[in-house]
């Protein structure tokens, strides 16, 4: 899933619209509870930021490495500590590395799956948006038709 940045001109256009609009631009879940809040607008980006951010974090962290840099902040005995750690690592490598390998493999598969899911979601969202767009005039025409009928009935 691509992180879609929003350009400043787009944001300012949104702000301009919000300021010009007589009604509010509250999020959907809030509209039901509060129908009137003049001059207060909440503009949301046209995608789920949380998903993008989390996916990015997953991508950055799936690859665990048992051979990470060994260090010590103790100045005098630091070298001894590092040597000890290195020896301990060497001794446990036969046990730790195969497990790490399994975990890495699992992490990789999960990461790949999440990316696939996000891409599918992207594609489906795009399709839905297109359908909605193309369907809007037809819906409007139907509504107008109904309205006309109602008006006629009222007239009769």
């Amino acid at each position, binding site marked *: 899933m691509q992180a879609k940045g929003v350009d*400043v001109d787009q*944001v300012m256009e949104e*702000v301009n619209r919000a300021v010009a609009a007589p009604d509010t631009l509250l999020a959907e879940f809030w509209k039901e509870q509060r129908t009137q809040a*003049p*001059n207060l*607008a*909440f*503009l949301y980006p046209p995608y789920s930021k949380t998903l993008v951010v989390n996916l990015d974090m997953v991508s950055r962290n799936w690859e665990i490495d048992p051979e990470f840099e060994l260090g*010590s902040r103790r100045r005098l005995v630091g070298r001894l500590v590092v040597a000890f750690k290195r020896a301990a690592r060497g001794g446990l490598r036969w046990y730790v590395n195969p497990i790490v390998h399994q975990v890495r493999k699992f992490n990789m598969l999960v990461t790949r799956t999440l990316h696939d899911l996000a891409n599918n979601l992207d594609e489906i969202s795009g399709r839905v948006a297109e359908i909605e767009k193309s369907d809007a005039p037809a819906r409007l025409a139907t509504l107008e038709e109904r309205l006309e009928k109602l008006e006629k009935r009222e007239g009769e």
Partner: protein
Amino acid sequence: MAGATRPVSVIVLSWNGLDVTRACVSSLLEHTSHPDFSLIAVDNASSDGTLEYLRGVQGITLVENTENVGFVKGNNAGIRACDTDVVLLNNDTEMVQDDWLERMQEVAYSAPDIGVVGCRLVNAGGNLVHAGTYMPVPSYWGQEYPGDEKDINQYPGDAEVEGVIFACAYIKRELIDRIGPLDEEYFSYFEDSDYCMKAREAGYRVFRCGSATVKHLENASTDLNRMDFSGTFRRSREVFLSKWKDTIDGRYARKLTWHSFISGEDLYSRASAKLLWAFDRAAVDVNLGFLEGAERAELADFRINDMKNRGRDRDRPQVLFGPADMLERADGSCNIGYVFTPYDRFKPEWVKELNRLDEVWVPSAFQREAALISGVRKEVVVMPLGVDPDYFHPGIKGHSLEGRFSFLACVEWGPSVAWETLIKAFADEFAPDEKAVLIMKVTSPAPGAEVEEAVEAMGLAFDRAPVVFVMDHDIPAYQAGGFYRSVDCLVEAGRSAEPGTEMLEALACGVPVVATDWGSAGEFIDGKAALGVESVPAPSPQAGLNWADPYYGKLRSALREVFVNAPAAREAALAVSESVRRERSWDLVASKMIARLDGIG
């Protein structure tokens, strides 16, 4: 233009690509106001009608090659066909401003040691792709910057650069006489980097002319002729490395390890990215390490990617730039913590950590005072954070709201910002007919419902000016200046003492600021461009530590003042802008750090 114009030949090289060549030549002839330029067209045996077209163009010199001799030999044929200065111009370029050539020539002659001048290049979509080049080490894969950014008028100035690409480059004849034409060991690619290196070696400087912009369709000939890009590129790279690798490696005079963050949107990542470039420009070989984990993901920034891959070296000094409780990875020959506190003091455990280091850097005098009274015993040196004058200046494109005064507050939702005081002060101060708006650019840790509920709970009056919340929009960091330029005033109603980088950036853009007069922000308050809001100490979430709450009434009157005196505030901010950009550039900050590191030895 200050001086008289000089004769110059524009060399356009073509190898098929009739449409792009035609567009290039006609735009060149139509949109070049330089009174003394001539056009030399060099054709590399085109077979698609390009040659016939060029033969029909009146008043040009045409050099016809019988075979495709490549970019280098083709351009050299043009260079030999005249005895003036030359501009090498790709046939996939188009002119978008009439005085481009005068401007480039003016830069070329602004100093005797300038030999090569490039310009800003935008792509077909209008994005800025080139304002200079660099050669990252150790990948030696030449890169352009900024890459592909929306053109917001960044890089507007004339500045010395490492190199420029020869899609559009002005070369002085005296330089050609001195070092010869392009090196014919190259067929295409890397010849421009090679020439810039050679020019610098001969004592000439390479410049970018920031006031000239040309449209570049990028690799049109390669694409149109289905050329083997990779093979040609690889061969040229090998030739380049055989000539220049040692020189490039030897350009670094100092060494440093920089521990911080790099790929986030936080202050540390943004400031680190700018500082790392500034260090590289100042010939410091930087190894980039991390305070937490290992940020392995490749960035779009190749120079920084390379810094991540240079390996560890414990024999060099280290700067650890991050929260004071994350400095454990200090293991260099000399370890410096570059830190700040959001409170009036540093927490005792932070102090303990800092006292293990060799030296402490802080971004302001306020922070220094806080460190000392908290018990930091090591030398505490003020190293201010900087601003990038290429991205924060009054010429950055803004998108103002017509007929409405707009306040902007960039808020990370949480207790460190007195957002409720700000919203209330604005709502109570401005009536709906006053044509003011408060734009709250909110970054929220939780989904927006929390913000909406909190604002709703404030029970704001209905008859007030509008407040618009821009929630979690991922505005590219490089466009921040465009946001500031779109508003009339930046408001920083912070409680914390963190460095006022946004304030600095807004002032660099010539935008007035209203800010809590406490912490690091205090040093910018001048009562004209930056209005201070008095505050009262208030308990922070950290037991025993305080931060500051801006006074509601003072904030109201500051907002009113900047609204009423808008032209004067704007004028004052514009006056401050230049000094901010000059005195707080990242290059200057880096040079201060280098001087200090040299002093430590």
